[in-house]
């Protein structure tokens, strides 16, 4: 018994270390991917000088960020200002603990996995608010306030759509949800929920066209206007890691996780399927970002409260009724 508990701990610690390493490398890769995708969409090559295809460009950038001076504005709330970037980065790491990369590759297959991920992702609001408020900058404060309102508004449709999936499986355990999609992915059974999830997830991660908290042309850089060096880097890392997590969650909830389409696994390991789908979703999010203008703040709220929430509620209702009578 004691032995088993020990192995569980080891699994957890090793997993956490791997997750940390993976999160950082993944974020660097995603930054590169973003720049490459943006570049090619805009008919330019993107980074290409450092390393093959410019792959090492983001590493060089990260090194530069590490080497930069950490400036704390003299009028800032110093403690909060320092804590905020850490606060935003820690919760996103938790997400990796429960993500089902492959049948045997889950660091901790909790029976509350789905709940845990969304509970922790709410933390980022707190960090953004702390960062924006403590900077003592009007742009940052405006960005922080916008961010809080936005995240509160979009968490509801997000969770409602997840609820409809959970209803279908009767479990909050990721592995069981993925298992249930062995033959048909939930995106085909729940297309509305899937679409709303993707839209809300984009808003949740503050990505364009919902990037109003850091709306460059209005608020300069939003809540991280005053941050420099690696503190800014942490915000950046958190954004991209968050993007990975929401895409991974979407993959496991709607796109069949480690399964191939319609039960055809084609002898490809589950982790490859999982990663392929996740990165494809990330690509779509990037593609959207580089296509659309930004929505105005009140339109964004209207869209959430007047359209997304009613539709996702209706979707949940329909799901519940259908499940009841099947």
């Amino acid at each position: 018994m004691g032995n088993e508990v020990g192995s569980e701990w080891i699994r957890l610690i090793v997993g956490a270390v791997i997750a940390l390493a993976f999160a950082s490398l993944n974020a660097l890769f995603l930054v590169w991917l973003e720049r490459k995708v943006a570049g090619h969409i805009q008919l330019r090559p993107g980074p290409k000088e450092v390393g093959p295809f410019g792959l090492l460009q983001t590493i060089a950038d990260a090194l530069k960020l590490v080497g930069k001076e950490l400036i704390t504005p003299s009028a800032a709330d110093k403690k909060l200002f320092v804590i905020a970037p850490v606060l935003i980065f820690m919760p996103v790491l938790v997400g990796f603990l429960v993500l089902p990369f492959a049948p045997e590759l889950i660091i901790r297959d909790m029976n509350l996995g789905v709940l845990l991920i969304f509970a922790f992702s709410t933390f980022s609001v707190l960090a953004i608010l702390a960062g924006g408020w403590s900077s003592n900058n009007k742009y940052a404060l405006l960005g922080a306030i916008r961010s809080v309102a936005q995240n509160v508004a979009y968490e509801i449709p997000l969770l409602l759509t997840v609820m409809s999936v959970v209803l279908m499986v009767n479990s909050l355990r990721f592995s069981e949800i993925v298992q249930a999609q062995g033959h048909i992915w939930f995106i085909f059974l729940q297309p509305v929920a899937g679409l709303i999830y993707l839209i809300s997830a984009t808003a949740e991660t503050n990505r364009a066209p919902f990037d109003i908290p850091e709306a460059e042309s209005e608020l300069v850089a939003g809540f991280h206007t005053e941050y420099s060096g690696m503190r800014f880097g942490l915000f950046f890392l958190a954004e991209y890691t968050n993007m990975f997590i929401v895409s991974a969650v979407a993959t496991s909830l709607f796109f069949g996780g480690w399964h191939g389409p319609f039960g055809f696994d084609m002898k490809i390991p589950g982790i490859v399927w999982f990663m392929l789908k996740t990165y494809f979703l990330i690509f779509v999010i990037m593609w959207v970002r580089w296509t659309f203008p930004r929505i105005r703040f009140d339109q964004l709220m209207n869209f959430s409260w007047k359209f997304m929430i009613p539709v996702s509620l209706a979707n949940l209702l329909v799901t519940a009724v259908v499940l009841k009578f099947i």
Partner: protein
Amino acid sequence: MSYWKEVINGGWSLVEGMRVTFRRLYRPVVTVQYPRQKVELSPAYRGHIEFVKFKETGTHKCVACGQCQRMCPSNLIKVQGIKERAKGRKVGTQYFIDFTRCSLCGLCVEVCPTKTLKFSREYELEGVSRWDGVIDLMARLGETRP
């Protein structure tokens, strides 16, 4: 009903927009990677001014009349000449321009009575101080002599 129509039309317009960007995704890039590739200069390119070297004399024809100096809107041309013989023509001996202040209007080239000024085709002009922007046209003419 019109609300739903707007939602659907709006959604479709977003899809159309994404189609436009996706088509660009696999098109060749249009930018020129500067130090490796270079664009061809236009035939009318205006660099800083320099002397024309005439075949028949093997040198410039500047007579130091000072018209360019007077016509320059920014007063950046300094030209001096001497008379080689007592009653002969003046010949330009020193010609400096401060290129940092030049607005490349081309008035000096147009006003030159002997047509000895032209635009150079140089564009990679970097320096470490503002004095590097001062160009000695006489010295340039000497350097480019074959």
